[in-house]
């Protein structure tokens, strides 16, 4: 074995530590199925195909590795088209998140473009709204716990707990699929966050949808008691792709091989 080959192997070792392979160990499969989203096509069921999802949101530590590998995504280098002035605003500098933030806390203040690129570079992608909502309706024991009062209260309580963005990943419950922290730490980006037409944007002169205010918010919603979902949809509606927000992070998913063609955003 020549020294070059050894070097190559070492390199490989370094690379693969952040590669798909290492990451996919931290992913679990979510079986496909149907669910009725809060907002959808006349409240009809949506089919979600099987996919795998990151067990945890992406952390500061992981994101630091990413920006070191792709310097164009460093705090000072990122193009304004892709991230607003709040991008990594609570990081100390380009190469450090500083002592105020926990290494294993979810990375926040990242834009949609950055999150999307991060996932692409892991050979993954951002989840769709439907995938995210489908995975997140599970509690510890049930794939769909949305009607449970305890489940809803748990989510609502988060909105009143301060500074959860700096809690360590894995500090909330492990759900039915084996996924942590879908509720209780941070909001999460989704690929098609801007498919929420029922939002506060003034630019929503669309044919069918009403907006998310006052009385009209209730029009077209499938479950009026699902306040937590209302808040998530409202939150997504307030976003633009270059926004970087203190309480907004992300995680990635992968399409399961057999059905990778049928994805619609």
């Amino acid at each position, binding site marked *: 074995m020549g020294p070059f080959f050894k070097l190559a192997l070492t390199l490989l070792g370094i690379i693969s530590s952040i*590669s798909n392979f290492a990451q996919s160990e931290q992913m679990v499969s979510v079986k496909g199925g149907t669910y009725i989203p809060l907002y959808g096509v006349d409240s009809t069921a949506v089919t979600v195909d099987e996919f795998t999802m990151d067990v945890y949101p992406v952390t500061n530590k992981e994101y630091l590795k990413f920006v070191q590998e792709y310097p164009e995504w460093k705090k000072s280098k990122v*193009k304004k088209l892709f991230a607003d002035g709040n991008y990594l605003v609570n990081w100390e500098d380009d190469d450090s998140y500083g002592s105020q933030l926990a290494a294993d806390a979810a990375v926040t203040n990242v834009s949609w473009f950055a999150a999307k690129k991060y996932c692409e570079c892991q*050979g993954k992608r951002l989840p769709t709204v439907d995938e995210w909502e489908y995975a997140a309706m599970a509690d510890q024991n049930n794939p769909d716990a949305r009607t449970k009062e305890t489940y809803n209260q748990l989510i609502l309580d988060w909105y009143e707990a301060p500074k959860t963005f700096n809690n360590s990943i894995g500090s909330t419950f492990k759900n039915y699929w084996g996924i942590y922290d879908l509720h209780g730490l941070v909001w999460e980006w989704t690929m098609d966050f801007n498919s929420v037409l029922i939002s506060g944007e003034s630019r929503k002169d669309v044919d069918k949808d009403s907006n998310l205010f006052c009385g009209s918010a209730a029009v077209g919603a499938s479950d009026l008691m699902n306040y937590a979902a209302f808040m998530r949809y409202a939150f997504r509606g307030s976003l633009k792709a270059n926004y970087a927000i203190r309480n907004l992070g992300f995680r990635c998913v992968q399409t399961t091989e057999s059905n990778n063609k049928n994805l619609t955003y």
Partner: protein
Amino acid sequence: MKKILNTGLLCLMLINLIACNTKNSDKTTAEKYQCPMHCEGGKTYDQPGTCSVCKMELQPLALNNKKKGEISELSIYNLPSKWTNQNNEEIQLKALQGDVLVMVMIYTSCQTACPRLVADMRGIEEQIPADKKDNVTLVFVSIDPQTDTPQRLKEFAKENQMDTEKWVFLRGSEEDTREFSAVLAVSYKKISPMDFSHSNIISVFDQGGELAYQQEGLGINNEETVSKIIELVN
């Protein structure tokens, strides 16, 4: 065995890395010059010299500095996405650099809002003074790339008598389309196999690809949009 696996992995990684790196390809275009006093209106020259009326030295147009490849951080030309136009040609958005762009996202099988958006675009085009039309490109971006093949786009252009150079119809991958909509702050969602609901926004970009103006809504007064376009061309 392990070696093969490792080599395979390495290859995979390399592919990933390449896929992630965005390259800036420079496209050189001819520089244009103009009299600083605008003695001959908006007349431009391809070469430096003096104005035939006031004899002042011609100045390179600012927009052409942008054209030479220097784009701002806010420019949509930072997007690496590849698109196909109605003539089945692969293009990057960069190819449109240098013109004022008027953009809208539609899908051709749309029965409700899109025909009206097309009419709005036509209305805007008609109001651009003849001597400025050359500096404006009007772009339709499909939000339904599955249905809107280049052939379909071509037919659509012909049906609407927009099959000329200044009208560009684009389709891209689902992902690039989603990304582009994110830049335009256009929201859309597939609501049935045939239909999408989407925001009705017409966006104007300057020569460097920066968003300059957005008109929201259907069939609204497009005076401001037109005056913004004219202002940019000047």
